[in-house]
């Protein structure tokens, strides 16, 4: 009688161990939220990023989902299950979101306002370049070619260097239009998040925020490893455009002081 019961126990034990191994091998589900208008090109970039994250994720047992939230619901949604929030909203909404949801990374995909950078919001990650970064890039170019009518951009559909060609090509193929600044920002925000999940096995919002702010080295397909300033601004090269055509990249070689990405924009928090 006793022997029979012990056998049953043993079988039960083995089953438990076996199923626990099965459970630990299952797919991790990762949720992202986009807050913004559906027509915004930032969403296209986010969706492209999501597609690519899942393409990588299928080989690694990670599955990414995206929820789209309208700006009207930005402040009363529950973000507790998301690993990060990607926003293309107005200045006031962004500032309020940053304040109200401190434990999660709030990506800025569209606002250039310098004040967002100098106030150093602890959970804000600005992918899109600031006005002062753009102004500095133009000023550098003007040292080489004074008076020329250039603008600075985060991205351009004709950019081919640093594997930009590959990104432009596959974005256009899949999304049916040329990638613009906001789309690149949306794509980059998703990719840096999924890269962090893949490499660091981070699955919660708090660790994701810390990792992105302090430990990131991201290939945005426009050059060197990218990371964030203490202001929350993503360091990046800018593209100088005249009459719709690319004329140069900033920092402008031979002119930029210092000759690094830190020659563009505001570096410090307002004390």
């Amino acid at each position, binding site marked *: 009688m006793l022997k029979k019961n012990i056998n049953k126990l043993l079988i039960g034990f083995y089953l438990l161990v076996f199923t626990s191994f099965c459970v630990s091998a299952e797919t991790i589900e990762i949720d992202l939220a986009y807050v913004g208008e559906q027509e915004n090109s930032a969403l296209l970039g986010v969706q492209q990023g999501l597609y*690519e994250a899942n*393409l*990588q994720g299928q*080989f*690694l047992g990670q599955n990414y989902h995206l929820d789209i939230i309208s700006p009207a619901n930005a402040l009363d949604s529950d973000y507790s299950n998301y690993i990060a929030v990607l926003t293309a909203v107005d200045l006031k909404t962004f500032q309020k979101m940053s304040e109200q949801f401190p434990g999660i990374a709030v990506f800025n995909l569209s606002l250039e306002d310098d004040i967002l950078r100098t106030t150093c919001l602890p959970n804000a990650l600005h992918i899109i370049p600031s006005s002062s970064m753009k102004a500095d890039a133009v000023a550098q170019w003007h040292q080489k070619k004074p008076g020329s009518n250039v603008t600075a951009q985060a991205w351009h559909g004709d950019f081919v260097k640093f*594997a930009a060609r*590959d*990104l432009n*090509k*596959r974005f256009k193929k899949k999304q049916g239009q040329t990638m613009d600044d906001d789309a690149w920002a949306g794509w980059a925000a998703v990719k840096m998040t999924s*890269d962090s999940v*893949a*490499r660091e096995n981070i699955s919660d919002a708090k660790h994701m925020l810390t990792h992105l702010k302090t430990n990131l*080295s991201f*290939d945005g*397909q426009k050059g*060197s*490893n990218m990371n964030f300033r203490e202001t929350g601004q993503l360091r990046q090269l800018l593209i100088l455009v005249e009459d719709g055509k690319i004329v140069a990249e900033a920092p402008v070689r031979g002119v930029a002081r210092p000759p690094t990405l830190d020659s563009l924009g505001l570096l410090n928090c307002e004390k």
Partner: protein
Amino acid sequence: MKQYFLVSACLYALLSQNIFAEPTGRIFITNEKSNTVSVINGETLEVESEIAIGVRPRGIGISPDGTEVYVAVSEENLIAIFDPKTLKILRKFKSGSDPETFAVHPNGNIYISNEDDAKATVYNPKTGELIAEIQVGLEPEGVAISPDGSKVIITSESTNMLHVITVPGNTITDNILVGSRPRAAVFTKDSKTAYATAEITGEIVKIDMENAKIIKRVQLEDPKSKPKDIILSKDEKYIYVAGGRSNSVWLMDADTLEVIKGIPVGKRVWGLAITKDGRRVFTTDGVSSTVSVIDTSTNEVIKTIAVGKFPWGVVIDD
């Protein structure tokens, strides 16, 4: 009487068929922007000829029996095949979109990375038949095959992974996350270890292929060193890494992955090949339109050869 006849018939057949072709010693270079293959004489190290091959030739490889050279003609979505002796184009076959890099399996099949399609495709180059299609990550590029033919590594640049495919099943059995934009890989002779390069992080990884685990990784110090091709010295004590825009080939210890020396070559060095006797390494210096020849006894460049525009791939018939 019958026996003698049989033996001499066999001998005749053997000799006339030339089953194992006598190697020409030639070095073949694909010129991406000239749409040609440069033919370099292995003795004189001079360009003997140039073959018009098709639009945007990149990857190049040779059949196991040395009778045919394969070229990936990227813009035409095909593989062109020529005779290394006569330099005549023998045939071409459609290969799936934008073939960039490929490797030749010991069984004669070729494994191609289709950059635009997130796929690797396997073809029998004798018949042009598609053997298998394997879905991999974004922008597959590097292809390396173990000498024992049991494993194939495909690097997917934008998903930052090495996919390990097991042959003959032709399915992915392992996926290894590496640094940013992995470009190329190489196996040791015993097929148990592999090395790979990651361009953006300037990283070299050493992988235990039996367990599909990274056992060592280093980052090259030069920020301009975007490593691409990687090959082993004949004694497997050293690795040579094409250092892209650092315009150097990095000589490294295969065990510790320490950099021993940077060998200055031409501009934007991507392609590497080593002779069977291990004495010479040939590089393709894309932006200078040259091939540099490194003497491995001194690890210095002994000659720089002008070839077509933007030389990309290199293969040696020896």
